[in-house]
């Protein structure tokens, strides 16, 4: 119960940080708040039993992203600020609000957070022997690794990880191409 309460509090914090990121007029403030948002997300992930994701979000989302964003505004200009917040764009709010409300109609049909009677666990769906169940039961005997996330990442779905490594490689190449540099600067 206490965990749920913490999760709700975190959810509210995350929401406020996101809105502040959108509304802060000063880009530097927005970046800092966005970093706080990423950290809030990372903590929420640990409460949702995803320590691997939490560490990645903290290292990459809050760490590397923030550094790159800061570097970018250091390399470019930071517009002078006369107001603390942006003026709210009413038509955009209406469009986005309608979009969110339409999505909200999906909520009743989504499975409750944390329920075990959902198709991914082989209930109420068509499949009974789902990958999720298989991984938890067989990770250690199949691969000898205890962290099921690592096993899925490196072995069962190693090709995804291959693609992921290629994405990172492609990003390095792309940045060099965009900035017109021939060597790894």
């Amino acid at each position, binding site marked *: 119960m206490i965990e749920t309460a913490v999760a709700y509090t975190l959810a509210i914090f995350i929401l406020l940080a996101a809105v502040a990121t959108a509304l802060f007029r000063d880009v530097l403030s927005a970046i800092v708040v966005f970093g706080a948002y990423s950290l809030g997300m990372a903590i929420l992930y640990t409460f949702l039993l995803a*320590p*691997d994701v939490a*560490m*990645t979000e903290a*290292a*990459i989302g809050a*760490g*590397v992203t923030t*550094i*790159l964003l800061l*570097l*970018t505004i*250091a*390399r470019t200009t930071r517009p002078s600020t006369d107001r603390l917040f942006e003026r709210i764009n009413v038509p955009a709010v209406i469009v986005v609000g309608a979009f969110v409300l339409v999505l909200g109609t999906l909520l009743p049909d989504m499975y409750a957070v944390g329920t075990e009677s959902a198709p991914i666990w082989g209930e109420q769906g068509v499949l009974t022997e789902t990958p999720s169940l298989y991984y938890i039961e067989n990770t250690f005997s*199949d*691969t*000898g*690794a*205890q*962290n099921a*996330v*690592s*096993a899925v*990442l*490196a*072995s069962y779905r*190693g*090709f995804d*990880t*291959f693609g*992921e*490594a*290629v994405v*990172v*490689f492609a*990003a*390095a190449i792309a*940045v*060099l191409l*965009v*900035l*017109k*540099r*021939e*060597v*790894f*600067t």
Partner: protein
Amino acid sequence: MSQPDSYTNSDTYSESQVILTSVRIIAPFTLTYGMFLSLHGADTPGGSFQGGAIIGVTVLMLAFAFGIDPTRKWVKSSFIAGLITGGVTIFIATGLFTMALGGNFLEYDAIADTFGIAHYWGMEAIEVGGVALIVAGAVMTLFFATAAGFTPERHGNDTDSARSGSGPEVGRDD
């Protein structure tokens, strides 16, 4: 093919004694932590993505503390290029090796069957030898390339080049 080695962005860091000292103390720990995460991902949370990122960020910390130019001089382009190309090569070579042994792409059991090495080590090979190197190298590349910024080498003739859109004039400076 050499790019001009001038970085005009010394304003991105401040030479504070506090930062210098703390980075000197923290850097070995973050580096160790990054390596620990990379090597130990199979049994505990964390893995080579996080580890590689933290190793890369360590270099970024040094850059923030000592300035980007001096750090660039320690970390050579060929070193970074080697990290990334080496990582990609090790990753793919592992996959091709398992195929050469008669398995499928990345089927570590083929190595296990032939050499008696546990499945586990195949995973370690691509995580530590592949992903960690690539991520660490890429984080450094992204940072240094963005820090160096875009220096147009053309002669300030935008209407002309906007229309041409072909043939980047690389290597005109040498």
